[in-house]
């Protein structure tokens, strides 16, 4: 052991960093961006789930329950007609609605109430506050019906998912696409930089190849790998993990393929801004983590602070994740306008990146 030689290694490392301003900047900027975003997301998230109340009770007790629900801090309520409930769940303006039947008061007098609770069901985290608020309302109801124990037997109906639908099902739908997206992104950015550092890119530039041909050739090559990976991920998720899937497997695969193509082009494009593999690796947290946080995978976009919602709405991954969930959880098909939008945004993103990657290719060679 020689302190001298160890010091030589340490000094050499720090000297390299001094020249590599970009890596240094990323090293200090990335954590602030990521933590800042996370803090803003978690502290700033405001909205409580929107619940509709359809009070059909001919007696007085339904109104009592509705009033308690209205004052609950767990949920935000609105009065609706029972027939409007399902459409509102579908278009996302409600996460649940409660129907208090016309014989609700007499049920309560008889000792057992069975209100219908309709849950949207695709986001497991949002069910708990609804059921909790309802439970509280029933407790206060019991105090109104003197001398009786009222037992509460809600009839829970799920629009999507179901009682067995769990967190893995919810995240699984998004992660099936996400895993492919990020792995493909990483191998593309690194191998494109290899091409630059081993000098072969210079040779390609001195050949009759056109820039667009290089970008498209890369895209096809990595897409082949990505599709094999996508198929593997899909089979594993559905057959082994048994992630909830309502939708058409071919549609899921199609969406995964679109995400993979987007990832390849993102990798090629971003490799133009890195001079070494080292710098490229720095891009990964900066590109990957904010997208995971903002694309609605963990926190639904609708619960984000409104400033961040704008950001989420321009990230292609938001649409990709939404599309995957629509297919796997809601059995969306291509006649759904939301799925058309999701697919079109991801495809449009690919086209923009192909153009941008092609345009930046020559400039960065010199």
């Amino acid at each position, binding site marked *: 052991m020689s302190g001298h030689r160890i010091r030589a290694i340490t000094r050499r490392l720090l000297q390299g960093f001094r020249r590599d301003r970009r890596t240094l900047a990323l090293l200090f900027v990335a954590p602030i961006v990521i933590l800042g975003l996370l803090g803003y997301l978690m502290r700033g998230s405001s909205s409580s789930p929107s619940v509709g109340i359809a009070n059909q009770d001919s007696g007085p007790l339904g109104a009592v329950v509705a009033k308690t629900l209205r004052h609950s801090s767990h949920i935000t309520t609105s009065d609706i007609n029972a027939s409007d409930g399902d459409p509102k769940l579908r278009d996302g303006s409600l996460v649940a609605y409660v129907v208090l039947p016309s014989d609700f008061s007499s049920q309560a007098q008889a000792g057992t109430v069975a209100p219908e609770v309709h849950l949207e069901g695709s986001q497991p985290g949002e069910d708990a506050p609804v059921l909790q608020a309802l439970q509280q309302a029933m407790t206060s109801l019991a105090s109104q019906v003197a001398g009786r124990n009222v037992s509460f037997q809600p009839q829970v109906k799920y629009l999507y998912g179901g009682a067995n639908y769990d967190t893995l099902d919810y995240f699984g739908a998004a992660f099936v696409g996400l895993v492919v997206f990020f792995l493909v992104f990483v191998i593309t950015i690194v191998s494109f930089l290899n091409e630059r550092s*081993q*000098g*072969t890119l*210079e040779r*390609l*530039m*001195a*050949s*009759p190849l056109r820039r667009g041909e290089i970008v498209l050739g890369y895209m096809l090559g990595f897409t082949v790998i990505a599709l094999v990976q996508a198929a593997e991920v899909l089979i594993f998720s559905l057959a082994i993990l048994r992630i909830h899937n309502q939708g058409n497997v071919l549609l899921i695969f199609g969406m995964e393929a679109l995400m993979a193509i987007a990832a390849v082009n993102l990798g090629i494009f971003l490799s133009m801004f890195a001079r070494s593999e080292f710098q490229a690796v720095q891009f990964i947290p900066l590109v990957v983590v904010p997208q995971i946080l903002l694309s609605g995978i963990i926190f639904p976009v609708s619960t984000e602070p409104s400033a961040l919602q704008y950001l989420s709405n321009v990230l292609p991954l938001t649409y990709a994740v939404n599309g995957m969930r629509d297919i796997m959880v809601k059995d969306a098909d291509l006649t759904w306008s939301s799925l058309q939008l999701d697919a079109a945004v991801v495809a449009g993103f690919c086209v923009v990146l192909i153009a941008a990657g092609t345009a930046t290719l020559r400039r960065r060679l*010199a």
Partner: protein
Amino acid sequence: MGDSYAVDVQEVSKSFGAFKALNGVTLRVRQGEIYGLLGPNGAGKTTLIRMICGLLEAHGGTVTVLGQRMPNVAVLRHIGYMTQQAALYPALSVEENVDFFAAINGAESGVKEALELVQLYDRRKSVVSTLSGGLRQRCSLACALVHRPELLLLDEPTVGIDPQLRVQFWEYFRRMAAEGTTLIVSSHVMDEADRCQRLGLIQYGRLLAEGSPADIRAQGGSQNLEEAFLALAAATPRRAES
């Protein structure tokens, strides 16, 4: 007059930031000629070659190759460029590398011949990352000439090549020139310079002497090419800063 020259470089300048790598270089190379670029490290040889194939854009002056102003993608299929460092795909075999460069130049048929020329046909299945430095250099040359270009730009092609093969390379270069191929070869080796029809001496980004090896000997006042070269180099003023 211009189109009888395969390469016509007029008053070309190139700066990297404030640093003038090339400063008003003018040279012309006739079709079928072997033109040697000589000059010390950092003189601007590689920069000039990269400008001839349009990889760098000039800050002043013009480069015309085979009658077309560069940069021009259409001309590139007639150019073969061997970079100074062997630029190959390390994970591919020798044959796969040559195949690839043949394919992007639209000339799949020349692969076997190119491999035989650099005497790598027996090792065509070897993966490039396992090759020695000289073998890589040979593979790199094969990639540059597999499509039988009209203009071959060779940046120090014989570095690391053993003497026997070097003699064979030069025989082949001469045969190609006789068939009408134009070659521009950069080198530090004086006995190679002697095999060129014409030489250009570059220093500090300027062309300071040009002519046949005999002319250079006369200009430098020495029968020894190396001494003549050193005498000419010592007589030039230092690089001009921009």
